[in-house]
């Protein structure tokens, strides 16, 4: 089933390449001080120490003094100007981010300069349910969206469902007026989806029982069946607990996003087996739900047994500084190993793509970054970024460097989307 993909990448990269001499951080498995990684057909063919065989005729790239780690996975990005639902309602599962993204947005090149190779691009948090999110890879030279998609085994686009609670989706046209109304609306919506799902199941034996096709409900059935992960914006501890209750009642898969006060209810989150995708900003406040912002959040959650990842919420924070989030979490006690996982394999697991991305392992996509030092030093820079074996960013190339440093022509015409500041 991977054949089309393999053929496509083979055509672009006929030969194997061996990356030799770098310190390899596979994330899953111990670091290799002086390693060999063989890439072929867009996948990692082999990884190990210097004794790893290099295929005959392979191109050899020497990376002595460099550090290689998996490409970074950002579970919350607004790059490309994604939209979702409009003012017509608070719950719009039929709206798809993929229908509004501009794949030519220079933001997709900027993110590669920060080492990001997979993004969950989402609409904002101004709705209880603002629509379907999309998992993309910022492959180089992409002009049309289908070339950015991360497809599943059946060739379908992968993505999740964006939800939000707390203050952002409250108030305004067709929105709930308080938290109680918001929660009631969401529960009612899930109950409706259960009914739709039951009708679909009944129609299997009796086609006359098939409901009228409803695109929003079809997406909701994917949520209920665990095929579409919910990405839930939530800040305050009580709002976080409400998400856990909702999950318990309706049985969907969910990743908590932002999670400002998650450390206050860490054991409840751990007990529910729900992961947290954290957004770190440099100071508390700016909104009442964010007064308890603290760099210690990740360490405290990890200590409680919660699987922790980071996200950029770009433009809330800039994708170029993504590694910094985990580094700041280390400053406040997150173990180094967890810090590495929080940028790579953990978010990959949270969106169920860890069989393809998130670590350097034979058989996985050759998504990796080359650093000029330890990942958690402020003085270290992402030198190169590779997606499926193809270099998508090289700091040594002035055309790419422009996106790393900014300056004339680096931004295009788009404006920054401050997800959580806006009504929608």
């Amino acid at each position, binding site marked *: 089933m991977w054949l089309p993909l393999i053929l496509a990448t083979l055509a672009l990269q006929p030969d194997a390449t061996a990356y030799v001499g770098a310190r390899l951080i596979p994330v899953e498995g111990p670091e290799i001080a002086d390693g060999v990684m063989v890439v072929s057909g867009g996948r990692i063919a082999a990884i190990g120490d210097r004794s790893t065989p290099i295929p005959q005729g392979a191109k050899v790239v020497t990376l002595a003094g460099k550090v290689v780690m998996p490409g970074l996975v950002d579970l919350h990005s607004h790059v490309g100007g994604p939209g979702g639902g409009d003012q017509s309602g608070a719950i719009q599962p039929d709206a798809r981010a993929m229908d509004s993204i501009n794949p030519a947005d220079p933001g997709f090149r900027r993110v590669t300069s920060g080492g990001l190779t997979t993004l969950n691009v989402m609409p904002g948090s101004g709705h209880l349910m603002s629509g379907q999110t999309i998992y993309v890879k910022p492959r180089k030279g992409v002009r049309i969206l289908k070339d950015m998609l991360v497809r599943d085994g059946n060739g379908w686009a992968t993505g999740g469902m964006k939800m939000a609670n707390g203050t952002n989706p409250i108030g305004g046209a067709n929105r709930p007026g308080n938290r109680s109304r918001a929660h009631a609306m969401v529960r009612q919506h899930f109950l409706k989806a259960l009914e739709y799902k039951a009708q679909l199941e009944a129609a299997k034996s009796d086609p006359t029982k098939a409901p009228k096709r409803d695109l929003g409900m079809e997406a909701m059935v994917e949520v209920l069946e665990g095929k579409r992960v919910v990405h839930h914006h939530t800040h305050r501890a009580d709002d976080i607990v409400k998400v856990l209750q909702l999950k318990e009642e309706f049985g969907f898969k969910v990743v908590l996003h932002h999670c400002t006060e998650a450390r206050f209810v860490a054991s409840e989150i751990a007990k529910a087996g729900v992961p947290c995708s954290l957004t770190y*900003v*440099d*100071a*508390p*406040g*700016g*909104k*009442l739900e*964010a*007064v308890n*912002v603290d*760099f*210690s959040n990740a360490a405290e959650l990890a200590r409680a047994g919660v699987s922790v990842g980071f996200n950029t919420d770009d*433009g*809330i924070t*800039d994708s*170029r*500084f993504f590694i*910094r989030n985990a*580094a*700041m979490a*280390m*400053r*406040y006690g997150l173990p180094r190993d967890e810090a590495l996982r929080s940028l790579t394999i953990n978010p990959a697991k949270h969106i169920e793509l860890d069989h393809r991305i998130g670590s350097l392992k034979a058989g996985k996509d050759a998504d990796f970054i080359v650093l000029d030092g330890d990942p*958690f*030093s*402020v*003085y270290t*820079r992402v030198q190169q970024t590779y997606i499926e074996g193809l270099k998508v960013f090289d700091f040594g190339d002035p055309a790419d460097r422009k996106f*790393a*440093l*900014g*300056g*004339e*022509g*680096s*931004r295009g015409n788009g*404006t*920054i989307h*401050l997800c*959580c*500041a806006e009504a929608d």
Partner: protein
Amino acid sequence: MKRLSWIPLLLPALAACQVVAIRAERLYPVSGPMIANGVVVVRGGVIEAVGPAAEVTIPEGAQVLTCKVATPGLVDVRASVGVSGMLNVPGHDQDQIERSSAMQPELRAEDAYNPSEPLIRYVRSFGVTTVHSGHIPGMLISGQTAVFKTSDGTAREVLLKAGTAISATLGPDALGSPNPGTRAKQMALLRQTLTDVRDAKPGGTANLRNEALARVLAGEVPLLVTAHKAQDILLALRLGEEFGIRIWLDGASEAYLVLNEIKAAKVPVLLHPTMFRPDGDARELRLDTAKVLHEAGLPFAIQSGFEGYVPKTRVVLFEAAMAAANGLPFEAALRSITLGAAEILGLSDRIGSLQPGRDADIAMFDGDPFEYQTRCVGVLVGGKPYPGEG
């Protein structure tokens, strides 16, 4: 034109007679080279001695603090903490801008500054001991700024310099009612207003607005002009030349395009935070502008600026670190948030360096202050100890 002004209280009474010594493996006076195994002796809130441990005697009975790295207390050259609060609730803790008319130079930062604001303690925990805060960009003239220490106390007690600058904005941030609708009209209004004040006959009713602008025309107070696009930077320089007034460039994200012009005008740059969002008229900011300014020999300092959402403030320590990560040499980066900032503010005889006679404002770290894994472990403001971060 006599002006009522507060007399800043220099020394918190608590610290007045206490002797504190700080021993640091690496001591950065900033006014001179790094001192390995350095000692700073503080008495009565003022630095008494600075030097290598072998040469400086720690007075008997002194409270001795040790750390890996000590630097001058950090100076934030352009902030909004104290006037713009953490909660971000308009009408409660947001006094950074008054939008009822385009020009209100009579507004004073110290009348709105809340020294109990949590964000002040927050930035202090990262080594910031002085903030130049007050009216933010967004109006043609938004008001006066002031310099405050981050120590505990009343606004009057922590005020270091009132009426430091008058904040003005050129370009898109100050277009649209009640601001003028075009750049040409912005300049026309500023010209007419400054001309009126210059030509005003003495006597008559006291006019706070005119008195404030008269101090700009007299060269006593700079016009702090926020301008991001190169064309707006040049407008600010032209205004300075036409009226012979002092200009401080604020934000200045496209300074890299007009380095020679800025240098010729001899104006300092209060540079945007390195991690400022590249949006609006700052959309083409560069992460290495601080490095470029440094290499061009321009006086500059890195600011925290103003944030209207999350994070509610930036931290100059982190912003200088990101500049250092993008090519600004370590010493220059440290200077840009200490002595460099103090020199621009005209306060280098008080703050920004570790020298005998200077205020005992000191930041202590457990490693390279810019590294992600390093923590600020303690702060002295006027000799009084405060906790570091976390």
